[in-house]
């Protein structure tokens, strides 16, 4: 099953040309004996929107988390903007500030107000002045449509609102790339679109995005490329229409038939 559908726009060469923002080379990751990422090679170009799709347990979250080293890898290398990910400490923290991350379970700071959630990073990591951080945060909250909730606590908001705040919190760091790990799969169905709308507008503004999701509508509308993973490998990658209408590998056909029957 080695990349049969590889007629996608060339993405494999590993040379660090400046239009490549995130680059994974021969990445391997084990959880004990479980080989969850197997020889992953993947380049994400500046401004590209990448959708990662695949069956449960195929390693999508691990791939996403490896990019900001929430999950350390066992071999291979990952670079961001030409720079190898630092191992730990201050340099790693600095790198993470440049990578926005949105989690399935939102993970808003439960003891802080919505506004404080968004200003914390800018104040403590970017060292913005309080007035400046607040102004920027309110603009972002405005943009994701929750400015009127600024003084509430996360638990007082709906899931959709919380996830939009989480996006604002990540954007407040002015990241180079945004990672989304199933951002809508913990949401009630009627709240999915309000979050996807924010993501679509972000994509259209040229944000580089890696999005783990099974939302095909989003993939078709916003993605430049779909990466299909199974058993820790990238099995197939193609532009969304091509991937969904004419998948090449058996694994992808099988997977799509399962999610399409619903």
């Amino acid at each position: 099953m080695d990349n049969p559908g590889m007629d996608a726009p060339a993405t494999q060469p590993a040379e660090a040309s400046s239009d490549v923002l995130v680059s994974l080379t021969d990445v391997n990751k084990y959880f004990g004996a479980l080989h969850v990422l197997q020889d992953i090679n993947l380049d994400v170009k500046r401004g590209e929107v990448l959708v990662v799709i695949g069956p449960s347990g195929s390693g999508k979250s691990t791939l996403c988390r490896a990019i900001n080293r929430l999950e350390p890898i066992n071999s291979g290398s990952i670079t961001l903007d030409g720079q190898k990910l630092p191992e730990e400490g201050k340099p790693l923290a600095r790198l993470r500030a440049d990578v926005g991350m949105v989690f399935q379970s939102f993970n808003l700071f439960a003891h802080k107000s919505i506004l404080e959630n968004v200003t914390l990073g800018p104040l403590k990591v970017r060292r913005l002045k309080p007035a400046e951080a607040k102004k920027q945060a309110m603009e972002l909250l405005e943009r994701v449509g929750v400015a009127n909730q600024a003084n509430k606590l996360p638990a007082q908001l709906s899931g959709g609102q919380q996830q939009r705040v989480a996006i604002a919190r990540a954007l407040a760091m002015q990241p180079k790339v945004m990672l989304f790990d199933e951002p809508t799969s913990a949401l009630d169905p009627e709240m999915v679109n309000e979050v996807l709308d924010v993501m679509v507008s972000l994509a259209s503004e040229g944000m580089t995005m890696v999005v783990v999701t099974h939302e095909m509508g989003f993939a078709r509308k916003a993605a430049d490329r779909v990466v299909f993973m199974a058993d820790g490998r990238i099995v197939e990658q193609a532009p969304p229409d091509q991937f969904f209408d004419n998948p090449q590998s058996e694994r992808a056909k099988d997977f799509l038939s399962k999610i399409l029957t619903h």
Partner: protein
Amino acid sequence: MSDFLDVLTNYDILGAYWVNIQLAFFSAVFALLLGLVLAMMRISPVPSLRGFGASYVNLMRNTPLTVIVVFAILVLWPIFNVSFSDNFNQNFFWLAVLSLSLYHASFFCEAIRSGVNTVPVGQAEAARAIGLSFLPAARLVIMPQAFRGAIAPLGNTLIALIKNTTVAAAASVAEVSILMREMIESNGNYVIPIFLTIAVGFVILVIPVGMLTTYLSQKLAVSR
């Protein structure tokens, strides 16, 4: 009854209690600070710090407090020259505070750690993801939530500490249990009233702490 009142007024019971309150106050402050440092060590990414934290807690938590107090006055002071004051009584008071602090720090550490366990891992991941390194993430995100989740065990530790101040008697600190012994020795006919008086004093000291922690643990609970 009036004879018993005479007994009570002949002794400076409130003054003795004041010593226990001071012991409790200073020990609580130092033990809580040390406990916080230990808890940070135990959750830190540095294995040697984690190991030190765990060893400290296991050593202190499993040693009887009296043994620690006796160690302080018979070993730390005379052999290692740990001295806080040239005034004999002052010195023993602070050696008692030191012992109480070292001992209860292990319990405060574990109470805080149980609070850390109430904080979902996603909170720490989100903190790291916006670029906070370990110390700022602990200070700004983890510990504030951990303390709110640890108020009940912290309160229990504080209550135990207040009662354990009587162990300072082993360092001849003139606190209330020493006074009680004196009172009983010279007023054998009033053993039970004297005992009850002292016990009620502790109840009066401790009950507000229990009420306060119950109130705070509800008021400050983090809603998720």
